[in-house]
């Protein structure tokens, strides 16, 4: 036996294997692609609507709206003021439209991640079996290089917004799920026992006790999810998602240093705005859980 050369499948066999898998996946795409696309149509419509709303409305209104949301979440004049200045600078440097596109995509991705992630997180918290099944899948989603799962997504949906959203959600949903699960599992067992003692049903326990007490942790999950969506913006632009990612990609290809830095900074700026606003909101949620008296 030769211990230097690893005994591997022959070249021809490997090729056959690849051809077989790719072939059957292509067939699957041809058969179900259109149906899948139709399922995601409402999502695309919503994204287009939101994007148009942000871009077509008068910018002062959009600015007031965005800063208003930031203020409602954070109740902080400082954070709101920072957001205003950042958005004004972004607009002044000609990145308003791309920024609006990115905000729209990140908003939709986060909404999808919340709608899918919270129920999965709840299911995980309720059953150890579920947890042991879902956890490795989440590990896979987080470690698999995103380019790899872009391939099948693009094969099915082509280039465009929907595959972009799917790729971003796959990347950004794991912390949402994990932190929902963790938040529910960390709920004080004494309080849960009290809920039981008063005759709560499972549903009443979930709605009255578990979710409200897990909310600050879930909020941290939403925050993580937003941050990761923003981090995916450049990768998503490779498959046709418009926004701040595209000029960055262009800048990489053409070595436009200033353009890259400016758009990069715009991404950072909205990341900081989202982060501060959601964190401040999470803090406010936690206000009553802190022990004041011993």
């Amino acid at each position, binding site marked *: 036996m030769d211990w230097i050369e690893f005994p591997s499948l022959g070249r021809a066999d490997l090729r056959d294997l690849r051809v077989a898998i790719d072939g059957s996946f292509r067939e699957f795409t041809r058969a179900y692609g259109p149906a899948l696309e139709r399922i995601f149509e409402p999502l695309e419509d919503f994204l287009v609507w939101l994007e148009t709303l942000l871009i077509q409305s008068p910018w002062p209104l959009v600015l007031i709206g965005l800063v208003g949301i930031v203020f409602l979440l954070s109740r902080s004049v400082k954070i709101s003021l920072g957001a205003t200045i950042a958005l004004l600078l972004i607009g002044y440097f000609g990145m308003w439209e791309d920024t609006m596109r990115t905000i729209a995509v990140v908003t939709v991705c986060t909404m999808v991640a919340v709608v899918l992630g919270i129920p999965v997180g709840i299911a995980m918290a309720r059953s150890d079996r579920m947890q042991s099944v879902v956890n490795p899948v989440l590990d896979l989603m987080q470690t698999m290089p995103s380019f790899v799962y872009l391939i099948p997504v693009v094969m099915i949906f082509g280039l465009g917004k929907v595959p972009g959203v799917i790729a971003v959600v796959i990347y950004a949903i794991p912390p949402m799920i994990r932190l929902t699960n963790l938040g529910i599992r960390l709920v004080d067992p*004494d*309080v849960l026992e009290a809920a039981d003692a*008063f*005759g709560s049903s499972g549903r009443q326990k979930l709605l009255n006790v578990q979710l409200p007490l897990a909310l600050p942790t879930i909020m941290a999950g939403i925050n993580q999810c937003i941050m990761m969506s923003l981090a995916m913006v450049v990768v998503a632009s490779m498959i046709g998602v418009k926004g701040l990612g595209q000029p960055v990609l262009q800048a990489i290809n053409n070595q436009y240093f200033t353009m890259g830095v400016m758009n990069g900074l715009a991404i950072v700026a909205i990341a900081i705005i989202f982060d501060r606003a959601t964190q401040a909101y999470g803090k406010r949620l936690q206000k009553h*859980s802190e022990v004041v008296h011993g």
Partner: protein
Amino acid sequence: MAEPHGIEIKNLYKIFGPDGASMVERVINGMSKQELNEKHNHVLGLNDINISMPGGKITVVMGLSGSGKSTLIRHINRLIDPTAGEVLYGEQDVCKMSTSELREFRRHRTAMVFQKFALLPHRTVMQNTVYGLEIQGISGKKAEAKAAQWISRVGLDGFEDNYPNQLSGGMQQRVGLARALTNDADILLMDEAFSALDPLIRMDMQTVLLDLQQELHKTIVFITHDLDEALRLGDKIAILRDGAVIQQGSGQEIVLRPADEYISNFVQEVNRGRVILVDTVMDRGEVAETDMVLQQGILLEEAAKQFAESGHAIANVVDKSGKPLGSLSMQQAISAMVTPNSH
């Protein structure tokens, strides 16, 4: 108002571990808690408990940490499932109830107060207090009106909109009590409800509870590791050790006739003047030449005070109508109050 049902606990066993049911036999045949743990890796929680808890009275279960008190009280609303035995409430065996029967039982028949309060931190005092009603499907003005009445009754007027973390421990437990009382249940389960409180506040809460019980006559099961608290509150006391009841009876019975060395060590330090009644010590049937009278049913401490104030050395104990039942000398009263040196 009809007297509420009592609670009958019969041959109750709880063995923690994967195969508790098959261990019951061993325990019945006399295997000790320690042996069961070492040889079979199961924990003996409760060992053949038989207690009859009278309706409308306070039954105290006392024991040191780890003796199984929490385990026992959690069988009454079946937060813990028994390994064997019965918990009867009237005709019903709590242990045989279906899930929905049990839920109804917990909603309408029982309410519980916890050692660590277990309030919902994200809800205000009012929102915490209506919790039980909300679970029953009653909400809005009607529930709040009822809750407000109990909040006021436990002395928390004006704190309705505070959050638990803005209140001291004693006040938080008042919320716990108000939450339980708002439920309007016959059975009130209190697991070391006052143990986490400072001594003075604890006395306060005991007084609150006794005052409430004067008018409510609930069937209260009160857990404590403190004999003084047990004697003050308990119409009946059961003492638990290693999961088994080693003595049960009135406070007086336990102090005067401790069942074993373990209990007599316990009762050594007790203030007997606050436990023993004049009826127990008096010379029954005797009538002394004195114009001092003591009411039947008062404690020796109170009698001593009256002796000191009146300056008499002997008194007649009389019933409500003034009929003499027996005589009690100051000397008798005082010697009954000091702890006998040996048992």
